[in-house]
């Protein structure tokens, strides 16, 4: 899967799951603040990433995820690892 495909898929489910406008999702924007995430929301992030990409993340995987770009990188690296 290309990075553009990862970005498109991720943005689509983030908009749907967290009920935000597409404009709030910018590559360098802070993920937690933009989506107004609390600790429980990261569980739902794991659920939708699993259902969209088939990869199982853990809470600790998000330690270094600050921006949307970081999230795309994380998903890309996990997909690469299983490929």
């Amino acid at each position: 899967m290309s990075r553009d495909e990862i970005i498109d898929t991720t943005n689509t489910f983030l908009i749907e799951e967290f009920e935000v406008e597409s404009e709030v999702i910018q590559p360098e924007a802070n993920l937690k603040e933009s989506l107004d995430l609390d600790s429980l929301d990261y569980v739902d992030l794991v659920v939708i990433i699993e259902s969209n990409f088939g990869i199982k993340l853990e809470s600790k995987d998000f330690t270094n995820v600050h921006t949307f770009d970081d999230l795309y990188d994380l998903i890309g690296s996990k997909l690469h690892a299983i490929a």
Partner: protein
Amino acid sequence: MERRVVISGMGIYSSLGKNLAEVKESLYLGRSGIVFSPDRKEFGYRSALTGFVEKPDLAKVLSRRQRISMGEESEYAYVATREALQNAKIEEALFDEQVIGLVYGNDSVSQAVMESIDIVRQKKDTMLVGSGAIFKSMNSSVTMNLSTIYRVRGINMTISAACASGSHAIGLAYLFIKQGLQDCVICGGAQETNKYAMASFDGLGVFSDREDQPTRASRPFDQNRNGLVPGGGAATLVLEEYESAVRRGAPILAEVLSYGFSSNGDHISTPNVEGPIQAMEMALQQAGLAPGDIEYINAHATSTPMGDANEARALTQLFGSAPYISSTKSMTGHECWMAGTSEVVYSLLMAQHGFIAPNINLEEVDETAKNLSLVKNTINQNFNVFLSNSFGFGGTNSALIVKKL
């Protein structure tokens, strides 16, 4: 000075309607909310009859974080509570100014449990059930959701007492206020209506199998009754200390005069006569009333052969033929955990609008009930004082006496 407990608001979401006005109309017309559910039949129900309650659309009303923790019973409870608060003229700001409590009856969360465990079975990973699953999978789901939405700061708990849950919730809210521990408590009862909720109950073979006549299946006190029909939804009351309600300029609809309770100390599912009598006598004694003072009784009667017969015997022994009696379960089916509150709402709607709703489908009165003043067709009749009975598995009984003001 004795603290009086009044009802300042009520709300309802049931198979009879989505609000007080719709429900009042259905009650007056004797309209049944029972349908046949092909989905239940396919699932394996012996009797696929149920009260039909539409899923509320809360997408534009509550945030994602609020909705994700709510199962069906919490959604129903939210809609009923929103109406009750409007009815009581309680704005959300009042929750910041005053300590308000919440006591709600609920005794199952079957759908949430089923769905989350199915995911774990399939995915072999508990995190994939999502963050809302735990908050939907506990019996206290309704109170944990409502208390968060409304920022409740008083007593906050769910009452699980089988089919008397909603009645005991009112009774306990009444006691919290009566004892001076709270000035205002929201109380109610909720009942999920999905196919998972009632499967094991259906398995006891106690549901009516008149699937070809859904609206005629629930027939409390009728000689030819052959079982109950499950229903559901939610009902909410706002209970307040009288002086506090007056200071707030709240509408004062009625007064809760007493809460009688008992346990049969007997069989787990078969009701008896003595337990309900004990609860009703306790309610009469605490209210300082004689049996002849009760003008209307909303019977627990669920349309089961043994349950109705034993309640009829108890009512005959205590009240004779004096009060009008009907079971609104003839229209709603058995609203189980919710019934104890919804039936107070139904009775109060009748008292407010000067009528007694019929015990529909009562064609041949059962021998045990022949001396009772059962209402077969709607009666235009003003009344003030009524008693509402609720009995549940394990022999838990609750009897509330309410007076319209």
